[in-house]
């Protein structure tokens, strides 16, 4: 059963088209992450689903019910905001019970739900406090609790962790994942943080300019980005790009200046004609430093320029044929600046994009 269905959704602010004829289907119990740079329309889409923005065209279905014209409170959703948006003059208990009081629920039912939610989120001790007396992490927990008490099928998260410091963000990220396992309801999560997206999502929708570029599970998005934009956006440190062309006479290869990489093993989507200009993308973590046995199909030399030790591994910056080239090596490996190093990669783990359209080939 589908939990949420969005059909031909458009939204304009005056002349600006923020969402363009967007279609999206989300299954029950799915954790979908909307990922994109700021201004891509991901938060706008979430606000449309919540009913906080009137759509220009199209329909939204939640649990098979057309909710396009319904008020936010009638849609069966709970929402968590980036700035927590707790009511400052109410206690934590007041914040949690506000929606239930508005829905005119019985007193003992309200108490039961508030108790239940505060147990799940471990905020029982904070119920009598005001938001000002809470830490950032506690506030966000209360904000999640406010969605939890509503007992709804769909949770909407609008960059909920962006205001927290790095350590807390990791902690709460895991907690949100646990919560999803426990409740097993549909969650839509907006973020610009690709790590959050990769770690939380069943599926990621990468958005740009009001369109969904790629909708797939995190692994596929990481390994088979549909175009150069997605490839650049996902992964940290970012993918390396080399500009060259394809040779397709006897066997397929990639040529950059005088260097030729054999591409045996790369799965082309289409037949690529000879001399077609392309981008070759390879992730820093897929580069292997050659330790003598030149077994890799592709290998070449670079000179080490900058070293960034990150503990578990070390990021090395260099140049290859005029293109900036980064690769990671084991954190314990000793590498010196100015050293010449032989690198290689497997054509299985690269991406090739058309030079003009930047689409995957």
């Amino acid at each position, binding site marked *: 059963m589908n939990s949420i269905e969005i059909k031909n959704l458009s939204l304009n602010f005056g002349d600006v088209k923020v969402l363009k004829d967007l279609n999206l289907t989300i299954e029950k119990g799915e954790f979908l992450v909307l990922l994109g740079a700021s201004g891509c329309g991901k938060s706008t889409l979430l606000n449309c689903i919540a009913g906080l923005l009137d759509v220009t065209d199209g329909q939204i279905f939640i649990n098979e019910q057309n909710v396009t014209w319904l008020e*936010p409170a009638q849609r069966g959703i709970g929402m968590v905001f980036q700035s927590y948006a707790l009511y400052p003059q109410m206690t934590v208990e007041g914040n949690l019970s506000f929606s239930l009081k508005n829905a005119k629920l019985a007193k003992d039912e309200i108490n039961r739900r508030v108790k239940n939610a505060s147990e799940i989120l471990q905020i029982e001790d904070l119920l009598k406090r005001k938001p000002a007396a809470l830490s950032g992490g506690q506030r966000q927990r209360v904000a999640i609790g406010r969605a939890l008490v509503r007992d709804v099928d769909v949770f909407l998260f609008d960059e909920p962790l962006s205001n927290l410091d790095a350590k807390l963000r990791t902690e709460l990220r895991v907690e949100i994942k646990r919560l999803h396992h426990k409740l097993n309801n549909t969650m839509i999560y907006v973020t610009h943080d690709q790590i959050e997206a990769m770690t939380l999502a069943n599926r990621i929708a990468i958005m740009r300019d009001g369109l969904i570029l790629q909708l797939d599970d995190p692994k596929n998005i990481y390994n088979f980005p549909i175009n150069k934009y997605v490839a650049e956006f996902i992964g940290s440190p970012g993918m390396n790009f080399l500009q060259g062309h394809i040779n397709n006479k006897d066997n397929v290869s990639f040529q950059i200046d005088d260097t030729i990489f054999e591409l045996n093993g790369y799965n082309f989507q289409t037949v690529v004609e000879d001399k077609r200009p392309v981008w070759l993308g390879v992730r820093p973590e897929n580069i292997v430093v050659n330790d003598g046995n030149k077994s890799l199909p592709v290998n070449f030399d670079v000179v080490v320029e900058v070293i960034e030790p990150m503990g578990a591994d070390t990021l090395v910056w260099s140049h290859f044929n005029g293109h900036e080239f980064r690769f990671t090596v084991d954190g314990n490996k000793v590498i010196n600046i100015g050293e010449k190093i032989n690198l290689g990669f497997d054509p299985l783990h690269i991406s090739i994009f058309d030079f003009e359209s930047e689409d995957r080939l």
Partner: protein
Amino acid sequence: MPNSLDMKTTDGPRGPKPRKILSRRNIILYGTLIFVAIYYLVPLYVMIVTSLKGMPEIRLGNIFSPPIEVTFEPWVKAWAQACTGLNCDGLSRGFWNSVKITIPSVFVSIVIASINGYALANWRFKGANLFFTILIFGAFIPYQIMIYPLVILLRDLGLYTKLPGLILIHTIFGMPILTLLFRNYFTTIPEELFKAARVDGAGFWGIYFRVMMPMSLPIFAVAIVLQVTGIWNDFLFGVIYTKPENYPMTVQLNNIVNSVQGVKEYNVNMAATLLTGLVPLAIYFISGKLFVRGIAAGAVKG
């Protein structure tokens, strides 16, 4: 003989830098402040001192000297016996008129303006910007243009010379600036809070009373201070839109001070003026802190 290392660690500057109390900067700063304070306080001093003197003492002409014999007679006379026209019941009548004018005017204007501001800030209805522009434009139209049309309007409504008419006038004239004040304050409240309340099922009034209003007490204090002082000190509307038995305190004060018959009783005039000014003064002292906080809150993100 200490070596050079010890010299560095023990004799060098350490802790807060010492500052001279009688520096040139301080003398100029505090000198100016004290001078300005005296400049503003001397008239008040003269008024208080004079109001506590008897007429024979005033005739001696030493306006700065403190009273030799303190008397509260002028205060009693100003409050209960001073004559304006045929009435000789003092300022007390005007005081109660002003109370009857100020309380409903302040209440009604703030209730309407805060709801206006809330609707303009959070519920972007169609034509909201046009409505707001017209309202703000109203703040720039000189009063003189509107005085006569409003006389006709009140006459046709049957409210001319009556207190409800004057209350209506004060509400209308308070509207532009108060709406602007509230709208600007409400726009500083994070939009996500409003969105959260909508998801939580609160409607127009629910959000106003349960979310927005409790967060806006400082701006309500500002509005109350502005309106109480403005309406209490109003002279023009009071004299135009009411008749003698409904005159507010300010108009009555003018009539007492400017009466031409008999001797000029300076002590009674001073006492009457101070009595009239007591209410705004009290409001400032009570809500001063809230007032400053509210003004500042509106100013940071206008």
